């Protein structure tokens, strides 16, 4: 009989440490793989289970924590063999229930590591499939990466009907090693469908208490705790855990009194601990954990509640009307997306809308990459903005948290596609008030669509608190009579349904002058009509002002703290900025010297000035390239060193952007001096060197396509052909990955690609680069510029 975990009338006791017991019984040496003992020493494992059962454990966990294909690689056994053996032992013990134990892979997922989400999912699926039919629970434990446990949780849910326990481990700073706090972990895991959530390993039970209380404060499902018996200490050359069963069980009792109902032990515990716990906890009635359900979004490091005030959704990660983002998408080089994410975060955005829609690109692949990269650098939750089901699914899968989906509408097709995905990935979803027949003209009709979406979502078990309705902003210059309908809709959505609302505010002013002014007045009206999540440009001062004031008015900015802080000395600040700006303008240096001195801001001001009178191409050649050449020369002579060279290069970047904008507005494309493909090779994840090369090459006017790190030969060949880049730059920092470089060059040649290849990286030498068939060895970034210059001038001269 399966335990009725949703209505636990009595606590459920798991077993304690396994490794500790194996060591006590001298059954295993350090560094040996415990799961192999399922085959070699099944009796000892059964004996341990039975000792735990005698002490009071209801559930024993299978000895499969490390039984994944990465860790078993050299063991001589398959995952299936080991898992099946382990499950059989657990089931032959005296325990009432068994739980299939799954631990982390031992590798970190992309983009911080290089294990792909898909492979992680596959690794976990293999374990689940091998063991699920003979066990009662699946327990995912000791995870510290939220994305990795998400992969495991999805694998468990997709391949079994069993209740899944998701338990993470926290460090002494109260976060997991990858930076996830307990509340974020708890919310994410339960929204993803975990049946029991909690914490194990980590610290002793006393130090875990604050973490456990945080989890209990948001839990909607039962909570599990399996603490260590304190931190290990060395006494007489032996590892000793210092917390006694007596002390340990006191803490656990306190946890149970707070609502923890699933209890076991981790490192250092043994049957005595379980016995002591059971003795105490059996005496009490564990209170049911009741928390108000709140609408929350998570990133891997932060929870953002949507019900406690205005949240700004940053609109700028959208290629519509933005040439530099379009260009980045076509070039598959997403740095500018990432920089814009960080800018918007700094400017005060609470959520980032991410849209990569552009005709002619693979939206699923692109969105996945962009979401992966952005979510690894920002702490803000993302709003995944795509009309395409496949792209949406790919992005939802690899997003390490609870995002917003933008969007579903009232059409059957949209609801059938989006709502199941929202349910599966625990996401909030924006409901657009339109359907097959378009945007209704009247408020009533729009509300009917809202009702339709709410009803349909309910069928999937999605509560209306997770639907954020978009009242649909219309453009005043085109549909003036519709502007008020939108505002009225906002009001009625609040009154009739009590739901959250959002609005793409900036659309209203399209085609009108002074858009910031227009937008800010409209925003004020919309906020007053009940708008919760304005989608705006957080960098716009008038918009920020409206929101800052409104946050005081609606009692969200308590005691006007934030407002006073930001606006008290405002006039003074404006004056200082002005003085500085004027001082800058009167700078006696010309652009060339400013670049040589690495003065970025000044170089930008000077470029703006120059552009009024001088042709962009002239600025590029006479000032920028000339400065870069001089700096490059000084670098090569050893008069300056790398950071100084880079400061000059950095000063050029801003100036270059302005020049590009100008030429683009003139419809010219004279600046493109040639296309270059860059990549850090397969197996290697070092990218600073490559990025330096990229910046330098771009400054000289080359179009650089950056494929990123860990790139295999196939991708390079495909992209080199597709993007038609006659020059390829490869970077490798490790002796081992230089091998991949060799392989890439060989495969390029086998495929008849005659692209020139320049290589660089710490371990490379001139000789070695010749040996692997490279056309040029670049000892530093300047050398790659020199080679590119030579190469492209030859090409042009031919």
């Amino acid at each position, binding site marked *: 009989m399966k335990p009725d975990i949703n209505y636990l009338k009595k606590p459920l006791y798991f077993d304690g440490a396994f490794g500790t017991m194996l060591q006590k019984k001298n059954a295993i040496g350090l560094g040996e793989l415990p799961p192999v003992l399922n085959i070699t020493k099944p009796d000892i494992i059964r004996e341990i289970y039975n000792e735990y059962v005698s002490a009071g454990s209801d559930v024993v966990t299978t000895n499969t924590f490390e039984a994944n294909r990465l860790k078993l690689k050299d063991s001589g056994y398959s995952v299936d063999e080991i898992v099946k053996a382990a499950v059989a032992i657990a089931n032959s013990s005296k325990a009432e229930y068994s739980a299939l134990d799954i631990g982390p892979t031992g590798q970190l997922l992309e983009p911080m*590591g290089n294990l792909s989400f898909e492979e992680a999912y596959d690794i976990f699926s293999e374990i689940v499939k091998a063991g699920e039919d003979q066990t009662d629970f699946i327990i995912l434990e000791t995870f510290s990466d939220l994305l990795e446990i998400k992969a495991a949780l999805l694998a468990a849910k997709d391949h079994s009907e069993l209740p899944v326990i998701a338990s993470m481990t926290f*460090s002494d700073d109260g976060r997991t090693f990858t*930076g996830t706090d307990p509340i974020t972990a708890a919310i994410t895991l339960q929204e993803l469908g975990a049946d029991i959530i909690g914490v194990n390993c980590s610290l002793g039970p006393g130090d875990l208490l604050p973490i456990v209380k945080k989890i209990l404060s948001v839990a909607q499902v039962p909570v599990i705790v399996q603490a260590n018996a304190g931190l290990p200490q060395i006494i007489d050359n032996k590892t000793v855990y210092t917390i006694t069963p007596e002390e340990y069980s006191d803490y656990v009792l306190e946890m149970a009194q707070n609502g923890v109902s699933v209890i076991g032990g981790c490192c250092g515990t043994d049957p005595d601990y379980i016995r002591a716990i059971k003795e105490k906890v059996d005496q009490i009635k564990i209170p049911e954990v009741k928390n108000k359900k709140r609408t929350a979004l998570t990133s891997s490091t932060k929870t953002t509640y949507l019900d406690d005030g205005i949240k700004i959704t940053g609109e700028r990660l959208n290629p519509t009307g933005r040439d530099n983002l379009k260009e980045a998408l076509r070039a598959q080089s997403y740095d500018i997306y990432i920089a814009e994410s960080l800018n918007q975060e700094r400017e005060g955005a609470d959520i980032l809308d991410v849209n990569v829609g552009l005709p002619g690109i693979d939206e699923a692949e692109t969105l996945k990459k962009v979401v992966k990269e952005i979510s690894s*650098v920002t702490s803000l939750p993302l709003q995944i903005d795509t009309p395409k089901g496949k792209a949406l699914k790919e992005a939802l899968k690899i997003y390490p948290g609870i995002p917003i989906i933008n969007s579903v509408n009232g059409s059957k097709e949209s609801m059938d596609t989006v709502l199941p995905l929202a349910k599966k990935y625990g996401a909030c979803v924006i409901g657009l008030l339109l359907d097959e027949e378009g945007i209704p003209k009247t408020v009533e009709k729009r509300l009917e669509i809202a009702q339709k979406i709410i009803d349909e979502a309910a069928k999937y078990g999605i509560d209306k608190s997770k639907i954020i309705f978009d009242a649909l902003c219309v453009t005043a210059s085109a549909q003036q009579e519709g502007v008020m309908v939108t505002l009225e809709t906002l009001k009625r959505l609040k009154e009739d349904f009590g739901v959250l609302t959002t609005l793409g505010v900036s659309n209203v002013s399209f085609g009108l002058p002074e858009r910031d002014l227009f937008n800010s007045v409209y925003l004020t009206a919309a906020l007053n009509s009940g708008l919760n999540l304005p989608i705006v440009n957080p960098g716009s001062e008038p918009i920020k002002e409206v929101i800052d004031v409104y946050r005081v008015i609606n009692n969200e900015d308590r005691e006007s703290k934030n407002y006073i802080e930001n606006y008290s000395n405002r006039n003074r600040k404006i004056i200082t900025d002005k003085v500085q700006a004027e001082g800058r303008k009167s700078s006696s240096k010309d652009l060339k010297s400013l670049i040589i001195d690495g003065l970025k801001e000044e170089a930008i001001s000077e470029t703006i000035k120059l552009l009024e009178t001088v042709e962009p191409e002239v600025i590029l050649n006479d000032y920028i390239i000339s400065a870069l050449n001089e700096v490059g020369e000084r670098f090569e002579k050893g008069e300056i*060193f790398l950071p100084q060279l880079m400061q000059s290069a*950095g000063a050029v970047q801003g100036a270059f952007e302005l020049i590009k904008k100008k030429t683009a507005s003139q419809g010219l494309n004279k600046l493109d001096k040639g296309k270059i493909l860059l990549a850090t090779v397969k197996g290697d994840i070092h990218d*600073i060197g490559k990025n330096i090369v990229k910046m330098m090459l771009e400054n000289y006017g080359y179009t650089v396509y950056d494929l990123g790190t860990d790139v295999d030969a196939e991708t390079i060949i495909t992209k080199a052909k597709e993007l038609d880049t006659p020059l390829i730059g490869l970077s490798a920092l*490790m002796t081992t990955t230089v091998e991949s470089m060799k392989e890439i060059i060989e495969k390029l040649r086998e495929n008849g690609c005659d692209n020139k290849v320049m290589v660089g990286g710490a371990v490379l030498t001139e000789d070695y680069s010749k040996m692997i068939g490279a056309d040029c060895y670049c000892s530093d970034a300047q050398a790659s510029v020199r080679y590119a210059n030579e190469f492209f001038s030859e090409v042009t001269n031919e």
Partner: protein
Amino acid sequence: MYLINTDYNTLEVRPEEIWKSLGWKNQKVSEELKEKTESIIDKAKHLIKPKSVLLTGDLVKTEDSLSFYGIELGGKTIKNFLETSGSAALMAVTLGIEIDREIKRLERTDLTSALLLDACASLLVEALCDKVSDDLALEMKEENLYTTERFSPGYSDLPLELQPKLLNLLDTQRKLGLTTTSTNLLIPRKSVTAFIGIMDKPREIRSSRCNNCILKGKCKYGICYHET
């Protein structure tokens, strides 16, 4: 024997050291770069979460093999390196993932700062290694034992493929959050594993071999254990 230390907040690094690691040869440095470097050091100190694990144990030597807790240490150099050591310590240290993230962020917004922070973190992890080594040396001295320098997988012919086994032995994923990639790079990036030999008496320095060594000019130890 395990030692787990988290109290390493005294790690120091100076701007000049960072510059030197980036090729500085006493060129004149602008005030701006000086300030930038100082603020980067400050930032680094707030971002790192230094952690370390150390395990000592006997070395098992046969005619042609050397092993530590059943892990075979391949390559000739480590055998020379540990020639006079009866036991050894294996250490793993890390600065944590947060500094990796910040370097990644800076790479997109201010590459010079990214480079400086990366270099700074490399020096900090080296300083952390020194601290762990020094502590071990002090402790050993009390027992009249001596320690060697550090020797890491990937150096000379000690294969990088050892990394997962070493991490597994030290249980670093659980203790430090330290993992490897499929190509045996350590993640978080600013992490090190290394062996330190433990000897009954201090060892003579054998520098005569250096002239013919393949690592000549690249060797960071100044003491040679390499087979010529």
